[in-house]
Structures are given as C-alpha cells and as structure tokens.
C-alpha cells in the first residue's frame, strides 16, 4: 500500500510503501527528502527488483528515481543483484562473459586474433613427456610434426633427437583404427555440431609430403585413365577355398593379394608399364623389377610403402608381404627405405565401398591401379543375366610414355587374371 501520494512532501526515512518480499512484508523508508513526483506500480503489482518505484524531487529540482531494493537490499550501488535471504544478494554481473582484466594490467583489451587451431580433439594431442616437449621446443621443433615411436605412439627423446640430427621420423601409430568419418589429413575432426565453423590444419608432416607429391605428379605427368569391369567370382571362390585349408590358416588372403599378383604378372608381360619418364635426363627408364607400392591409409595420413621385388612373389609370399606392409604402416614402423623406389602402385578403394577411382600417380611412377569393391551385380553370361562378384579395375597412367594401347593391354591382362585366377597362378 502506498503511504505517500504524488505531490506529497516527504522526509528522509519516511515510510513510502509496504513491500512484500519472499520472506516478509517490509516498510520501505525513503532514502531522500523531497516531493513525490511519480509513483510506479499499483497495489498488488509484482515489481521486479531494480525497477523504478517512485520518483522524488530533491531540493534542486532533479527527480531521484528510487528503484525497488533487492531482498533484503540492493548493493550500495543498488544494481545487478539477485535476492537471497541474507546479504546484499547475489551479484548477477559476476558471471558476465566479459573479460575485464588481463595479466599485465591492460583493461579489457581487444580480443586477440584466433590462433590457428591445429586439433580440436584432446585425444589427438601428440603424446610426450614435458622434458621431451621442452627439448623439442629448445630446438625449434614443433612436437606435432614428430612421429612417435614409443609405446602407443609416444614421442620419445630419441624421436626428437632423430629429427634434430636430420633423420626421418617414422610414422606414428594410433591406439585404435580410426573411423574414416572424422579423420582428415591425419587429424581427428570434432563432430560437425561441436567443432568450430572454420578449422585450420597446418600442412606439415605426412600431409605436406602427400600434397607436394601429388602436385608434383599432377602437374608434370599428363594423366590418362582406363578402366575395366571384371567378373571376379572365381577369384572370390578361390580365396574362399584357400582360406579353409589348414595350411593357409596363418596366411591372410584378400582380393588385394590377387590384384597384386595380377599386376606383377601384367608387368612381366608388358614391361613398359613398369617404367619412369625422366624428363630431366630425357629418358624413359624401364625397370624389370616391381617395387609394388600400396597406398595405405594410416592415422597420420596417406603413405605409400612398397614391396620390393614383388614380381618374384608367389601367392603366399605376396599375402605375407602385404600383411607385413599394412601392419608396419599402421604401427608407424615403416622404414624410409620402404617408402622409396616405387615402380607400380595399387590403391585399394574397395574397403570404402567404392566401385572405382581415378588416382593420381605417385611421382616417379607411370601407372597406378585403383581396385574397387567386389560386389554382387547382374552380369550377362551366355546372354543370360546372372549374379556375379564384380570388381572394377581402373588405371591412371603417364601418357608421356604409356599410350592407351599399352594401358588397355595391361588392364585386360589384370582383368583376365582376376576372371580366372587359377590358370594364371599355375602358369607362373
């Protein structure tokens, strides 16, 4: 109930109104002496804390608005507090997300430009110990560019030492196979919803190598491509039959094993495919030994280690060589020597559920074969549509030295091999 009216002359501490708060009905004494010029709110109104309640003209003619006190009181400044039963109330501006002070004394400085974000997933921060970090820092080496060789990819002092002394760090392994969905250029990306709108990933390490290689290749070797679809049903049957043999229990066979053998076999028949166009020397170099590169997707990115003298391997030998290559790549223990000298390459995009691809040549090679998925598909046999295991084999080649005829011959050879692998295997 208002105890004063507009026009009343009131004294300091004169009761103005009864306010019912959460805990009691209290009389509000006027903090000013003067003349009431305005009342805000009717009896029964709920007035928010801090809202004007009454205006009083004090002496000099200025109206002094009085805000509703918090419960039990506002701050001495009378603002920004949420009532509780005891004390001035809770400061509401305390948690305002504004920086007021910064170490060094600057008050509310301009926000610093955002630092490039290298990784949003803490799990992917390179693992190392503080002294090793310090050691790397002291030598101006970014710890993120180092591939750890310790347990679970730990970056050890010797890893840093190797970089310091100019050696090549080995590929870093990951504790678990990453999903292809969030991993990109060797980084684990945050989910779409929670990641930043724009994320910048520095180009270095494996990514830098891949980028340089691809650019070098794409802009020096004119790429051409050819592809073939093959009924690989017999390959599938053969693999299935071999896998069930006890003697093959420890051999990991896959369609890739057969493709590798087929490509090597094709090279023996058409050595031109196993060549290199050396522009600087003005030569085309034909090699009669296949260093078979296998594009491997690792947690740190794409690397292409190779199997030396792959053309000499039999089925079991090829299977074992592939197994070893993949395991080492995943574990990050591929040696530099295993990364150089590739002559022919296979990239296996089948596991991704893809039918075909047109790959770019690794520098220094003239052909790369992409193997798609082997999937059941309608196939015409003797004018009848039947279901077969079908695979698409594609090849990119350096058109400076390899023409369409050679490429087609090689592809056809691979196709025939896969279409009926037994005779081809027996023929070797």
């Amino acid at each position, binding site marked *: 109930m208002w105890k004063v009216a507009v026009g009343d002359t009131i004294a*300091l*501490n004169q009761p103005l109104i009864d306010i019912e708060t959460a*805990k*009691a*009905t*209290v*009389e*509000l*004494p006027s*903090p000013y002496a003067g003349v009431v010029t305005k009342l805000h709110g009717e009896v029964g109104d709920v007035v928010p804390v801090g809202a004007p309640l009454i205006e009083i003209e004090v002496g000099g003619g200025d109206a002094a608005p009085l805000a509703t*006190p*918090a419960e*039990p*009181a*506002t*701050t*001495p400044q*009378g603002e920004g507090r949420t009532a509780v*039963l*005891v*004390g*001035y109330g809770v400061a509401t501006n305390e948690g305002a997300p504004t920086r007021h*002070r*910064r*170490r*060094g*004394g*600057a*008050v509310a400085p301009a926000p610093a430009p955002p630092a490039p974000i290298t990784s949003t997933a803490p799990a992917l921060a390179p693992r190392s110990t503080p002294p090793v970090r310090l050691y790397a820092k002291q030598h101006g080496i970014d710890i993120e560019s180092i591939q750890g060789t310790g347990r679970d990819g730990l970056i050890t002092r010797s890893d840093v030492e190797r970089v310091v002394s100019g050696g090549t760090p080995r590929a870093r392994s990951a504790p678990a196979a990453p999903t292809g969905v969030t991993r990109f250029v060797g980084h684990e990306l945050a989910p779409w919803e929670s990641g930043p709108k724009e994320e910048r990933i520095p180009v270095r390490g494996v990514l830098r190598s891949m980028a340089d290689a691809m650019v070098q290749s794409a802009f020096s070797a004119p790429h051409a491509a050819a592809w073939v679809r093959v009924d690989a049903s017999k390959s599938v049957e053969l693999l299935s039959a071999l896998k069930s043999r006890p003697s093959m229990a420890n051999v990991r066979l896959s369609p890739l094993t057969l493709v590798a053998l087929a490509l090597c076999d094709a090279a023996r028949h058409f050595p031109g495919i196993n060549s290199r166009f050396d522009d600087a020397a003005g030569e085309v170099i034909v090699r009669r030994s296949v260093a078979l590169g296998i594009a491997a997707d690792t947690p740190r990115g794409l690397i292409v280690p190779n199997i030396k003298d792959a053309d000499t391997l039999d089925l079991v030998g090829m299977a074992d060589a592939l197994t070893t290559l993949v395991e080492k790549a995943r574990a990050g223990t591929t040696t530099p020597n295993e990364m150089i000298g590739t002559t022919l390459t296979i990239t296996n995009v089948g596991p991704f559920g893809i039918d075909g691809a047109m790959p770019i040549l690794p520098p220094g090679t003239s052909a790369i074969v992409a193997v798609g998925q082997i999937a059941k598909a309608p196939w015409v046999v003797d004018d009848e549509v039947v279901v077969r295991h079908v695979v698409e084999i594609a090849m990119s080649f350096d058109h400076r030295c390899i023409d369409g005829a050679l490429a087609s011959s090689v592809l056809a050879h691979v196709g025939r091999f896969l279409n009926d692998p037994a005779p081809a295997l027996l023929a070797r």
Partner: protein
Amino acid sequence: MSEIPLVQLLTPEGERVTHPEYESTLGKDEIFGMHRDMTIIRRLCNEATSLQRQGQLALWAPLQGQEAAQIGAGRALQPMDFTFPSYREHGIAWCRGIPPEKWLRLFRAVDHGGWDPQQYRHSVPTIVIGNQALNAVGYAMGVQRDGAEEATMVFFGDGATSEGDVNEAFVWAGSFDAPIVFFVQNNQWAISEPTVRQSKIPLYRRAEGFGFPGIRVDGNDVLAVHEVTKRALAHAREGGGPTLIEAFTYRMGAHTTSDDPTRYRIDADVEVWKHRDPLERVKAYLVRQHQVPASEFDATSAEADALAAKLREDVLAMDSPDPLSIFEYAYADVHPLIEEGKRDMIELGVGGGAH
C-alpha cells in the same frame, strides 16, 4: 511477567521499587544520561534498519527492546575492563566510545571487525554463536595471571547458552575462578526458537551447576541492570570469580533485517512487552521524580537525529576496501601464499585504486 524472581528497581510504570540486596545509587543526571544513551542507540538502530532497507547495508541486527540491558551493563563497566560482544551489542559499543559508523562496517560488508579492540577495550564482533565466551574466559584467566584488577565481560544471547562453547566457558570459569561476568540477554528468541527450546530451567540457574552465582535481572530496567552488573564486575575484580547475569528482556524487532518474526510469534506477546519499554519507564520516572522538562528530552531526540544523520553520511561515504587489503592481516608474518596472491592481483590489475 514471570513468576521467577528477578531484580527490578524501576517498574514499567516508572515507579522506583526496593530490592533486599540491590539499591541504585544513581542520581538524576546519571539516570538522564542513560535515557540519553538509550534514545541515541534506538535512533541509530532505526537508521541502520532504514539504511539496510535502502540497500546500503547487507544486513542489520536490531537491538530494539534491549537498550536497557546494554546501556545498564555498558555504563557499569570501568575503563580497563574488557568486553567480548556478539554482533548485536551496539549499546555496549556506544558505552565503550566506539564511533557508530565503526559498528556498521561489518554490516556494510566492508570489514569483519571495524574498530581497534585494544583502544576501546571491546573485542571485535563474534558471529559464530558462543565462541567469544571461551575467548573471554581465557582473557580473564590472563588478567588473573597478571594480578590485574580488571573484569572481563562477555555478551551473548539465550540461544548461545545451548552451545558447547558457552558451557565449556562456564566450566573453565568455575574451575579457575576466572574474573568474568557472563551477560546473557535473554530476549526470548534465537531467531525463531523460543528460550524454552534452549533450556528447561531459567537460564540464570545454569550457573549453580557450574559452581558460581547466577542472577536474573529485569533487562528492561536500566537501573537494575546497572546495579547488578556493577556488583558482578566488582566481584570479579576482587577475585570473587564469575557471575552469570540473565537480563530478562525482549527482542522487539526481528532477529536481523533478513528475519520475519510474524511467521513464528504473535502480536499479543509483542504488545505485552511494549508496555515494558525500557525508555518509557525511565522517562516517566525522570518526569515524575525529577521534573525533567520535555525540552530536555526533545534536545536528546534532536541530538540522536543529528547522530543518525551523521551515521547515514558516514555509511554512504564508506567505500569498498582496496582488494589488496585482504592480504594485509591474514598473517602476522610473511607468508609465501599471501605474497603470491598479492602479486597475482596486481598483475591482473586489481587493487591499489584500480578497482
């Protein structure tokens, strides 16, 4: 009032009555002085309540109704005596000569204390109920060991008598014959808990069990409180040991400005106690017995108003302390975490007027 015997020298109607053991020797001027004291602290207390309602204090603990208990006791003290208050002893602080704005520093939340306790012989406020009773007994034991003729007096409320510390203080005081006066203002309420919740027997009778005298005095009778306290203090100074004084009074207002007594007590009780007002009876007595003219009371009121205006001015001028000051007295000696905290604040640009 109650059936229990209590010392009363001035009735609520302002009649002087006699007591077999206690007789006031105060003359007109001294009694008028006490009326002035009570008028002033009531006025200052009202001002503080207004300041709290207006958002200038975080809290206020009003003493309305307890003016006689505090002024009667406060005026019985000798300068060298030492007092230990709770947080409602504004009347004692007044008697000890502490400027009113210093009492309000705590309630303005700019300080935990507010005055130099050695200068005024009045310790800093104790908010944790009953802690000060033990501290006071320890102080009294120090006085005892010094062989000094000083009394120590400690103030607490009826609620505190349930605290272990107060009971332990009684044990210590009894056991060591400490020169102390325990002054419990039984204002009937510990926030919402009535005294009967704290004790099945009258509080003053607790003393007997601890081996020293206890006495109930009409806490609204400034003459009786003064006389009883004076006697107890003298008893202590003379090495007679402790006394428990129960000033039987009533908390006319809320426990603090955060309290709402209408939730737990009835108006009728308050009305009864209004008739026992500690100021009115003294005024009636002075008018009737000593023909003090109205103008003198008016002058006292004007003085009280002026002090209230000064208090308001002082409180409004009371700024937040420099944040760096929090480090100043956390320890007496250098402490690495204090140095570190200070450095941190300075580096963040806090304090030293930057606030």
